[in-house]
């Protein structure tokens, strides 16, 4: 059965490299992937007030379309989409009355039956592929690269939707170990990157990027690996801007986990779209001898 995939806005615009590298990995693994038909925005931020059912409509409509496609599982690459879809999915399962209200509001859609499972691509790689399988496929081990995994918020919190332990996650550490990289731990790995404040409070987000990266660098990291397109932007671009604010500070490269897997598996580097990053990600790969081209 084909794997059904929900893209979301950013994967189709400023994070095309995340999508392309994930597709390349799936192809290498022999999994067929299909983009959902007629998807809409997930809403990004899950509704936080009890009476605000309106903002569950967008994610619910997507879940309905997963059922319409005859699937019981949908995979997302974006952390925000993952979190929002999963929180709505939980809410309607816990509160059948809310589901009834939402179903009757969307009278042109089929009713949601609650059969869909929302999974993140990292979860898919861990649970359905297995990091040991990836390990066997590695052609360019990331030997000598000291990498800090950065999880951010949306993969881990609230606890009900977490893909791993909410305080001490290991999923990216396990992945990096499978790719032969050296993992640098950092207590900032689960702290917020500044999120949407990147629009109106740039310095605040630069400060976040500085704090997170500085700690990683002090512990010897060469690079950061993460999964969320907004975290990537904040740590990479706002982190680069932090160089002007803080003395003797240099931003280190930020990778999506999919890019590092693609590099390690020896897939065509074009799929990684390294040109979209503010801090050159290729330089380090060349320096460490992972990447020859």
């Amino acid at each position, binding site marked *: 059965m084909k794997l059904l995939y929900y893209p979301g806005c950013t994967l189709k615009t400023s994070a095309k490299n995340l999508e392309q590298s994930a597709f390349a990995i799936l192809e290498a693994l022999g999994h067929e992937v299909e983009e959902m038909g007629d998807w809409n925005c997930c809403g*990004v931020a899950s509704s*936080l007030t009890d009476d*605000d059912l309106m903002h569950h409509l967008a994610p619910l409509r997507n879940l309905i379309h997963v059922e319409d496609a005859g699937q019981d599982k949908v995979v997302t690459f974006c952390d925000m989409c993952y979190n929002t879809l999963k929180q709505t999915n939980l809410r309607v399962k816990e509160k059948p009355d809310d589901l009834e209200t939402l179903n009757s509001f969307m009278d042109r859609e089929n009713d949601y039956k609650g059969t869909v499972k929302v999974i993140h691509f990292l979860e898919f790689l861990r649970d359905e592929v297995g990091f040991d399988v990836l390990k066997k496929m590695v052609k360019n081990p990331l030997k000598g690269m000291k990498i800090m995994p950065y999880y951010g918020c949306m993969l881990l919190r*609230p606890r009900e939707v977490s893909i791993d332990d909410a305080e001490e996650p290991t999923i990216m550490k396990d992945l990096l170990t499978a790719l032969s990289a050296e993992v640098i731990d950092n207590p900032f790995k689960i702290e*917020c990157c500044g*999120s*949407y404040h990147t629009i109106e409070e740039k310095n605040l987000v630069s400060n976040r990027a500085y704090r997170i990266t500085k700690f990683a660098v002090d512990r010897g990291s060469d690079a950061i690996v993460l999964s969320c397109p*907004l975290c990537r932007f904040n740590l990479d671009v706002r982190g680069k801007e932090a160089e002007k604010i803080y003395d003797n500070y240099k931003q280190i490269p930020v990778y999506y986990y999919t890019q590092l897997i693609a590099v390690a598996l020896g897939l065509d580097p074009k799929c990684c779209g390294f040109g979209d990053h503010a801090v050159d990600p290729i330089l380090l790969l060349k320096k460490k001898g992972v990447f020859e081209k």
Partner: protein
Amino acid sequence: MKKQEAIVDVNSLNLKKGDLVKEVEELCGENLFGCYQCGTCSAGCPFIEDMDLSPDEVIRYVILDRKEVLNSKTIWLCAACYTCAERCPRDINITKIMEALRQIILRKNIDRTNLTDISKEEKESIPQLAFVCLFRKNVG
């Protein structure tokens, strides 16, 4: 920081004496009186240094019906990272309390963000999800 601090005339919000905590509890479904002021939320908050009131102070202000809490920077700085909610030993979802306070203002048609202030360059360079998230948080 280019933005002016939004000043809400708390008297114009039609909140009667003692109504603030009721309104907040109704919106978020949390029991604010469960808070014993341990400060775990504030200790773990990534934005604490830029806040004028710490999250535990916000809870206290609401309980004491001090409506000036609606003018604090704190409620807008909270980016809903859920760290406080995750760690609260009294299992109070502070993230939802912050949202409730924002909603009290936003539902009076007072927006925090002026959409026309966002430049073309920002629109083209920043990931799309950041905008959706900002509008969801700061625009009613």
